[in-house]
Structure formats: structure tokens, C-alpha cells
């Protein structure tokens, strides 16, 4: 099996949460909607990269696509944390953070560098923010959730995010601090492929555990 195909098959583990997302989309708690969109967009992006970008487009187009994906991922996940009330309904703080993220992305790709080159600072910075928000959410669940936490959707999804974004920080920090594209560096990048697969499985479990919109049956109608 060729290397790109193997990586593609691993990245296709996003299909699991995407299928689960399609099944649960209508009856799942609406506060998880941004996460569903994130999963669907990730699947679309994987397919787009494998079937269009890699065979037909230039390396520059691939980098642009990657930069746009990073921006969308950051924005959608910040919105998701807002929906999970991690900003304590402080809309100003949330909008401020979105603004800072957008400004950071624009300045990195258009002021300090170009969108055609590999710019990992924005990715590392928002990954760091998402890890902190995920840890905060996990702590909140530990204190407020009074059932088995291993069956809590929010906990599972945030654990997935912590794992994925911590490795993203480590890998991209190593890649950013050394620009030699040697075989060793490619091998380091391999870690991300496996971590991505593990995270996708955690996301699929998380989506399966998302509580329904209305958990109760209207017993008055049963009479």
C-alpha cells in the first residue's frame, strides 16, 4: 500500500464521527451543532485534499487550503465552546477572542508572511487556547456532572481535543523550529496520523453519547 493511501485511510477515520453525526444530527442536543459542522467540514476537507488538491493542485494551493482549514477549525470550535457556555454567556469576551483569532490569522498570512508558505504560529496558538478551554470544560464536568463521567459526551469530546491539540502543539513546534525537511521530520509527522485516528474514534463515541433534544416522552399523550 502506498504511503499517501495509507495516510488517507487513517485520516478517513473521520468517517466514523461523520456517520454518527448524520445519524444523531436531528435528535441531538442543539448545543452540539457547531461540533457536527466541524466534523462534516473535516470529512469534506479530507476528501477534497485527497481527490482534488493532492493529484491536481499545486503545493501552494494545498497550503492555502490548510491555512483556511485552520481558520475555520479555530472559529467553529470557539463557537462550540461558546455554545457549551464556557464563556459564562460573556458575549464580549467571546467576540473579542474571535476577533483576536481572525486578526492573528490575517497578520500571520498577509503581514508577517504570505498565505503560500507554511505558517504554524496561528495553529500552535489556537491549539493552545483550545487545550485550555477543553481542560476547563473537563473540570467543569467533573464538578457538575453527577453520573458516570466516562459516559459524558462533553467529557469524551474534550478529552479528544486535549489529546489532538497537545500533539498538534508538540509536532508543529518541532516542525516550526527546524525547517529541514528530512526523513526524521516526516516520521515525526506520522504521530499526528495515529493521534488523528484515535481522536476521531473518541469523537464518534462522544457524538453517540450526546444527549437527545428532548429526553422525555410526553406521558400525557399515552393515555
Amino acid at each position, binding site marked *: 500500500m502506498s504511503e499517501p493511501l495509507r495516510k488517507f485511510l487513517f485520516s478517513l477515520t473521520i468517517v466514523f464521527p461523520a456517520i454518527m453525526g448524520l445519524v444523531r444530527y436531528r435528535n441531538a442536543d442543539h448545543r452540539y451543532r457547531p461540533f457536527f459542522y466541524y466534523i462534516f467540514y473535516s470529512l469534506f476537507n479530507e476528501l477534497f485534499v485527497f481527490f482534488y488538491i493532492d493529484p491536481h493542485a499545486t503545493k501552494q494551493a494545498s497550503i492555502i487550503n490548510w491555512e483556511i482549514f485552520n481558520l475555520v477549525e479555530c472559529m467553529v470550535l470557539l463557537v462550540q465552546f461558546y455554545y457549551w*457556555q464556557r464563556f459564562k454567556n460573556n458575549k464580549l469576551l467571546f467576540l473579542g477572542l474571535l476577533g483576536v483569532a481572525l486578526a492573528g490569522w490575517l497578520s500571520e498570512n498577509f503581514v508577517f508572511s504570505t498565505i503560500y508558505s507554511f505558517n504554524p504560529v496561528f495553529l500552535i496558538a489556537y491549539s493552545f487556547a483550545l487545550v485550555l478551554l477543553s481542560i476547563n470544560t*473537563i473540570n467543569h464536568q*467533573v464538578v457538575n*456532572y*453527577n*453520573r*458516570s*463521567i*466516562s459516559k459524558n459526551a462533553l467529557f469524551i469530546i474534550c*478529552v479528544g481535543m*486535549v*489529546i489532538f491539540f*497537545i*500533539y498538534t502543539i*508538540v509536532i508543529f513546534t*518541532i516542525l516550526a523550529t527546524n525547517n529541514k525537511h*528530512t*526523513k*526524521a521530520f516526516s*516520521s*515525526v509527522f506520522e*504521530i499526528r496520523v495515529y493521534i488523528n485516528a484515535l481522536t476521531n474514534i473518541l469523537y464518534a463515541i462522544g457524538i453517540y453519547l450526546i444527549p437527545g433534544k*428532548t*429526553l*422525555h*416522552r*410526553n*406521558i*400525557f399523550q*399515552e*393515555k
Partner: protein
Amino acid sequence: MGEREYQFYEAVMILALLIGIIIAYFIITIIRYHRRYIKLQKERILAEITIQENERKRIATDLHDGLGPVLSSVKLHINTVELVNASDKAIIDKAGKHIDEIIRSMRQISYNLLPNTLERKGLLEAIREFTTLINERRELRIELQVLKGFPIPREKEIHIFRMIQEIVHNTLKHAGANSLKIGLGEDDGFLLILAQDDGKGFDVARAKEESAGLGLKSLESRTEILNGQLIIESTPNRGTEHFIKIPV
């Protein structure tokens, strides 16, 4: 891959592995400690509520069985006094009325502490009696629907009754509702309780975080010790729904 490159690769892999172990340990510890914390919390709540209920039961019994008969006997003795003076008779009549009032208040206090019906006739009768009493006050119209009779363990009855009492009191106190529908049903070994009011509704998440009242906390605590599930859904101006699912 050269020697230095290989050493770099090895170092990164060890780093990745160590991070993985730390994250795994962190998550497993959280799950284990959370489980232990929940268990301890449940035991503590159960102990507190059991002590509280036993105390209520003792006071209710003392009032009902101890003071009640004594007061009735006092009234009986007063009534047997033969009087000729009209003003003395008026005083005795007044004292008799006061004693009646005391007996009524005492019964009410005793009922609030622990309804006699719950002990003697069980949960469903106690709920029926309670809703009838509220309906008589005409502050709220309660419609009770019991879909079918089902056995409920004795030790769970008091908690279920208190939860319904709490929902009704919350509706009376905060909802500004005209009517409240309470449905009781059974499904696959679970007791289902659904209460719907037509009041002004409230922000459930905010109330849970910010409310200093004990009503919601009491509902949550009792659901917790019964291993049940409590869902409160409310929309401003569209009423509130309480759904409780308890294994019986």
C-alpha cells in the same frame, strides 16, 4: 536516516510516548476520582436526607399522637364544665374555639412534616390528597393523571412525594402559573413523572448556577439518591416541564 537524525527521531518518539502516558494517566485518574467522589457525595446526601426525614417523622408523630389527643381531651373537659354565668360561658366557648384552631394548625404542621396518608395508604393516595388540598386553595389548578398503578418500594415513596411537593411549591411560588399537569406512568421498570405548568418559565442553566434557593438542589439530590434522572426544560413565557425517571 543518518545517526543524528535517528537520535532526534528517537527523542521525539520518547517525548510523544511520555506525553501520551501523562494524558492517559490524567484521564484515568479523573474518571476514578470522579467515581469515588460521586459515591461519597451520594452517601452523604442519603445520610443527611434520611436523618432529616426521620426527624420530621418523629416530630409529626409526636404532634399527631402525643399533643393531639391531649388537646382533644382538654376540650372535652372544658365542655363538661357547668356554668351559669353568661360571661364565663363566653370565655369557655372562646377557649374551645382556640383549642380547635390549635388542633387544626397542629394537624396541618404534622401533615406538612409527613402526610399520614403516605404511611397508611401509600404514595398515590398521598399525592392525590396533596393535590386536592392545593386545588381547594384555588391558587393553582392541578390536574393529576395516573396512567396505571404500579408498585413502588416503600423507601422510595417519601422521596418521590417530596419531589412532587417541591415541584408544586416551586410552581406556586415562582412560576405564576394557572395550571399544572402532573402525569405518573411506568415504563420498563422505571417510574416516569412529568409535570407541565403554563407559567412564565425561567432560564434553567442560570438558575442552576446562580440560584441560592434550595428547591432545585433538593430535587437534584433526591433524584441522585434514587439513581434517577431529572430533566427540567423551560422557555420564558412558555412554561416549565419537569421530567423525572426513577428505577423502581
